[in-house]
């Protein structure tokens, strides 16, 4: 049995590694298919902005970073791969030689913080409200919340963000939107000071609030239906017949069992925390990984794009494996590999 689980895990891990490699390779060649290259974009910029001649600009750019657009793509791939096995993600092509790893480490915390916080809030709140909706099914809370959840679930996140800015910010002046853009206020010294932390929270408010609104409806509705089916199970009836107090029944039995199907979803969602939301971060000028990826795409910063794609792919694969294992662990039927016959 132990051996079996181990071998299954092993297989999953190998599959995950292959997927990561495939994504890495695919994105490597894909982003080099994009029209324009980082050198050319820089050259154009110098020509346009500083009025240099084409040749001047070309020389200037050549001293700035060592990207040779004429090197065969396959050679570049082999170079990249050999760096990668030494855990070297290369250097950014546009931010004057900053190592990509350093860049990722700089932007990642913002995304992890904002998306992670939002996931935490949306999940716990959604589960609690969903449980209550199912328990007092047909009541006022259920009716109001079902409408709310369905509506909020149906509206795209960036539309929510726009409405937030326009209605709550500009029209009603409930939120001082103008002060909230970006990651932190310039001039406040980063550090473990109350002032800085409050400032961080303030600036994270818009993206976090948007993420929470965009996802909470889904959690509420899923938890509601999961709870309703749990309430119908025999063991709940039995527990109730045994005279278990309602509150204990709700928290210890119903809530816990109804949450099981949500756990794998949660694990998968965690995988997407790293990528953040490119569009929401762009909209709020939030300095996360998603916005940085959009910027890198615009500048054709191959190495940065490559690094970010890789980090996202790894986190998605890892969380999928976790979800898989979690599912097997929660549902003993799957652990044996299912009832499927093999011909």
């Amino acid at each position, binding site marked *: 049995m132990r051996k079996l689980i181990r071998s299954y895990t092993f297989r999953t891990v190998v599959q995950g590694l292959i*997927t*990561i490699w*495939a*994504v890495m390779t*695919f*994105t490597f060649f*894909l*982003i080099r*298919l*994009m*029209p324009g290259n980082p050198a050319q974009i820089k050259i154009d910029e110098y020509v346009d902005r500083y009025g240099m001649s084409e040749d001047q600009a070309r020389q200037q750019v050549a001293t700035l970073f060592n990207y040779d657009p004429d090197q065969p793509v396959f050679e570049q791939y082999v170079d990249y791969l050999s760096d990668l096995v030494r855990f070297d993600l290369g250097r950014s092509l546009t931010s004057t030689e900053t190592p990509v790893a350093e860049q990722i480490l700089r932007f990642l915390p913002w995304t992890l913080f904002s998306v992670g916080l939002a996931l935490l809030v949306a999940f716990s709140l959604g589960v609690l409200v969903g449980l209550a909706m199912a328990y007092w099914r047909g009541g006022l809370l259920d009716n109001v919340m079902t409408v709310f959840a*369905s*509506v909020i*679930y*149906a*509206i*795209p996140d*960036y*539309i929510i963000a*726009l*409405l937030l*800015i*326009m*209605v709550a910010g*500009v*029209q009603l002046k409930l939120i001082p*939107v*103008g002060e909230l853009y970006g990651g932190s206020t310039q001039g406040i010294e980063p550090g473990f000071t109350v002032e800085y932390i409050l400032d961080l929270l303030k600036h994270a408010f818009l993206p976090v609030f948007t993420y929470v609104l965009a996802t909470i409806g889904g959690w509420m509705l899923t938890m509601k239906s999961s709870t309703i089916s749990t309430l119908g199970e025999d063991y709940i009836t039995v527990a109730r017949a045994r005279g278990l107090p309602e509150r204990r029944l709700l928290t210890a039995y119903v809530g816990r069992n109804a949450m099981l199907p949500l756990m794998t979803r949660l694990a998968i969602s965690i995988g*997407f925390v790293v*990528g953040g*939301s*490119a*569009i929401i971060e*762009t909209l709020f000028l939030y300095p996360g990984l*998603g916005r940085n*990826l*959009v910027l890198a*795409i615009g500048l054709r910063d191959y190495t940065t*794009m490559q690094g*970010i*794609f890789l980090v*996202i*792919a790894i986190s*998605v*694969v890892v969380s*999928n494996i976790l979800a898989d294992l979690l599912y097997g662990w929660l549902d003993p039927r799957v652990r044996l590999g299912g009832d499927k016959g093999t011909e």
Partner: protein
Amino acid sequence: MSASADVRAVLSEKSLVQRLSSGTRGTVRALLRNKAGFLGFLGVMFFIILTTLGPLVIPYEGDPRLDRLRPGARSLFAPPSVEHPLGLDVKGRDVLSHIVHGGGPLILTALEAGILTTIVAVALGAAAGLLGGFIDQIISAASNFILTIPQFPLLLVLATIVTFDNRLGMALLLAVLNWPTLMRAVRAQVMSLKSRDYVEAAFALDLGLWHITTREVLPNMISYIVVNMIFTIRSAMYFIIALMFLGLVPLTEPDWGMMIFIGKQQGSLSNPEAAWMLLAPVLAIALFQLSLVLFTRSLEEVFNPRLRQGV
């Protein structure tokens, strides 16, 4: 002899027509049964009529209307009035005319993308589920692969490579990115339907894989597929607007996404005066998406054979 004639009548067109008409009545009843779903249906109908018949009634204003500058005003923006129920945009053009003319292209592209995605997903899901083995492994690996790449950034990259001068190209691209989720669900359904007794009976009767797929397995998934197609349309629309939002698709007017892009560019996000040219498309998109999601509730009832024929 007369019994045989009866049987022939059963098989004839006339009874088919009868069956169809009773089907229509059932459809209407199913539509009405779910209140939220019916509301969604009305919403979808509203937008379809608005964007198809509306352009026949309301002329399109493409050129700037400097003549509408009111004396003393700093900009051409104007709040709703009787002549212009949704106000004027940055160039003094009627916002309503852009809403009416700018929904069609967007909705059509999303529709095409949704249909294409569904076709790809159903074909691959059915193949994976029915044939199993090597083909299943290949298809599943491909879907895992696509799901591992962050969708929106990938779309951003692809958007620079593929030029979207035509709608179909855009729809195709969205289909390539969006098929895996639905494919997985179809595959799971097919696997479970495959082991049904009536499918085994069809194998024994040698009715052929095509018959088994199209006549035995798929009819029982129609409701599921249609509902998911709606969700795919929705997600296609999400991506198209997101691309426009960042200014990454060739931007042609009139288009709701374009209205948001221009509005954002003109600083309307912080300009209370400009709210209308931005709020109108934002609300239109939000309401259309909401209607689509609500509408799926009714569709479930319409297409589920057991829910319907039980009447």
